């Protein structure tokens, strides 16, 4: 079976011959592993494309980063963007990155969303946001002009429906549509500190943002979705709306501001035969799961263990409904072989029995995991997944 066939079987609670695997790593981890013996030619992969974005008519190898699935010999869920439908959901025209202040180790700049961020020049931590582009209704009314769904720059430059259909029909890896969700939209434009209380401090503004964004998404997705329909195997819906002990927004807020808009978008997808919508959110949002299901969400990644998410318990509670991806505690991979085995053995055999589960760590592989420990984890997992 191809990874795509296996993926479809798993997501329909049927038996594949092997389980696909979902991991992601950051450059800091790859750098650590290089110092621990990862071969350089494995870390730097290449693909072929026209040089300088097509301004020189010569095909040249272009490097891209380490593919963890390929290196460890697993069937992948995604293959370096080749099976991801990329529709630009950001502000257009985009803001240019502009340096405001630079010191020996930090850079303060205007970011592509139009806010101000500071990033480190010496390590790979997330940037610190100093300012966001939308602070009030006046900002939003101006900013929303950048969300024109009919702007053709939002589609790939060589896009035609025929080319797309051919590409995605032939793919052996699941085809994925990535959507930026509603909370993610508000947080991106206003920042958590302003957006989360705004459901109470400025409800009219938030309603307008959510409603506008729902209409924008449906109109933007229309061409690709109506051309590809069920050739799109899954939707990766990014939200990140929870923290260690609960969701950032209450069920009451979710119901009033997000659920009707979520239904509008998922209803459009469902109408076109796309039903598998997997939500990406860190933290613990268990209390929102019934509402998310009502809104058309059918699975979730990464199920952070430290936040109290447990795929085994959730499977027992929800049966063969929700699909789960991830949930192997990354912290256990720093505690030695016995801890790794204990964590994997408690979850994977039980979850693979019924299907609807793709194993992987409960988020990006952090740089405190050694290549040796990760290799042990990967080999142990392979033995359990019929490799």
């Amino acid at each position, binding site marked *: 079976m191809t990874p795509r066939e296996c993926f479809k079987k798993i997501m329909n609670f049927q038996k594949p011959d092997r389980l696909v695997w979902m991991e992601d790593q950051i450059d800091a981890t790859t750098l650590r592993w290089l110092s621990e013996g990862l071969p350089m030619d494995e870390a730097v992969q290449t693909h072929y494309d026209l040089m300088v974005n097509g301004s020189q008519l010569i095909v040249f190898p272009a490097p891209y980063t380490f593919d963890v699935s390929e290196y460890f010999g697993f069937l992948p869920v995604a293959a370096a963007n080749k099976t991801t439908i990329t529709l630009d959901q950001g502000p257009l025209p985009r803001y240019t990155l502009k340096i405001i202040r630079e010191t020996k180790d930090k850079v303060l700049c205007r970011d592509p969303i139009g806010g101000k961020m*500071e990033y480190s020049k010496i*390590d790979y*931590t*997330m*940037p*610190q946001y100093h300012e966001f582009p939308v602070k009030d209704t006046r900002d939003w009314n101006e900013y929303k002009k950048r969300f024109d769904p009919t702007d053709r720059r939002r589609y790939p430059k060589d896009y035609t429906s025929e080319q797309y259909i051919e590409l995605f029909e032939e793919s052996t890896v699941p085809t994925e549509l990535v959507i930026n969700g509603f909370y993610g939209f508000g947080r991106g434009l206003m920042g*958590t*500190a302003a957006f*989360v*209380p705004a*459901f*109470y*401090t400025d*409800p009219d503004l938030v309603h307008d943002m959510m409603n506008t964004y729902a209409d924008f998404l449906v109109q933007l997705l229309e061409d690709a979705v109506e051309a590809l329909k069920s050739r799109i195997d899954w939707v990766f819906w990014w939200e990140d709306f929870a*923290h*260690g*002990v*609960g*969701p*950032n*927004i*209450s*069920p*009451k*807020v979710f119901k*009033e501001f997000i659920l009707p808009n979520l239904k509008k978008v998922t209803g459009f997808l469902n109408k076109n035969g796309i039903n598998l919508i997997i939500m990406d959110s860190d*933290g613990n949002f268990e*209390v929102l799961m019934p509402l998310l299901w009502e809104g058309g969400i059918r699975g979730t990644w990464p199920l952070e263990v*430290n*936040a109290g998410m447990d795929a085994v318990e959730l499977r027992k509670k929800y049966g063969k409904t929700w699909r789960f991806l991830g949930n192997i505690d*990354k*912290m256990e991979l720093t505690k030695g072989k016995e801890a790794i085995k204990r964590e994997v053995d408690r979850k994977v055999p039980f979850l693979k029995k019924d299907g609807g589960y793709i194993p992987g760590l409960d988020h990006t592989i*952090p*740089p*405190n995991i050694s290549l040796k420990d990760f290799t042990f984890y990967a080999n142990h997992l392979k033995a359990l997944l019929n490799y």
Partner: protein
Amino acid sequence: MIHEILVCEGDRVFGDMSVIRELSLAFVNLDYRQIRELIRKALDSGASASEILKAMQEGITDVGKRYEEGEYFLSELMAAGEIFKAAMEELTPHLTKANTTSIGTVIMGTVKGDLHDIGKNIFKTLLQSAGFSVHDLGVDVPAEKFVVETRKSGADIVAMSSLLTTTMDQMRVVVDELKKAGLRKKVKIVLGGNAITEEFGKEIGADAAVKDAVLGARLCREWVKG
């Protein structure tokens, strides 16, 4: 709108009640739009600034309780924080030093290498509303700064935050540096953030490790009560 729905719920119906009670309920009902007007109304009715502050503190304590009981979530907690800030803007010109006596001093910051501050800022608002004097050192704070500021302020409590697994070991460095400086026994230490666990708190010698700002604030109140 949400606050209108809440106002109509059973025991929260506004009726013939004093403006002070109304003010306290505005927090529970998360009535941001009314808060400034209610403060002015309370002042006009002759209520003292300390009575008003007490009503606000009761209101925010009630919000915290509802959060702990699972009725409210972060959205409600942060909204209450914004309401508290707006109310304080109205009330501050009327407060005297006697109204604002601190119940304790807290030094807080996000440890070196980590730039996250949402949880820390919620914790700060909750501590301020409870009557603590808070020295917020910001984000990416090196251990030496925690030590210098703890000594300078005579803090009762040191609060550290780390969201990232990659930076949580910095908390250990701060605890060790406080020990070396002879300050460890003079302060309580509380850790917060998504990455930390109770087990980790014990391992590095902190007094408490919490994932929740409301619980952290409650602990701090208990510590200064003795």
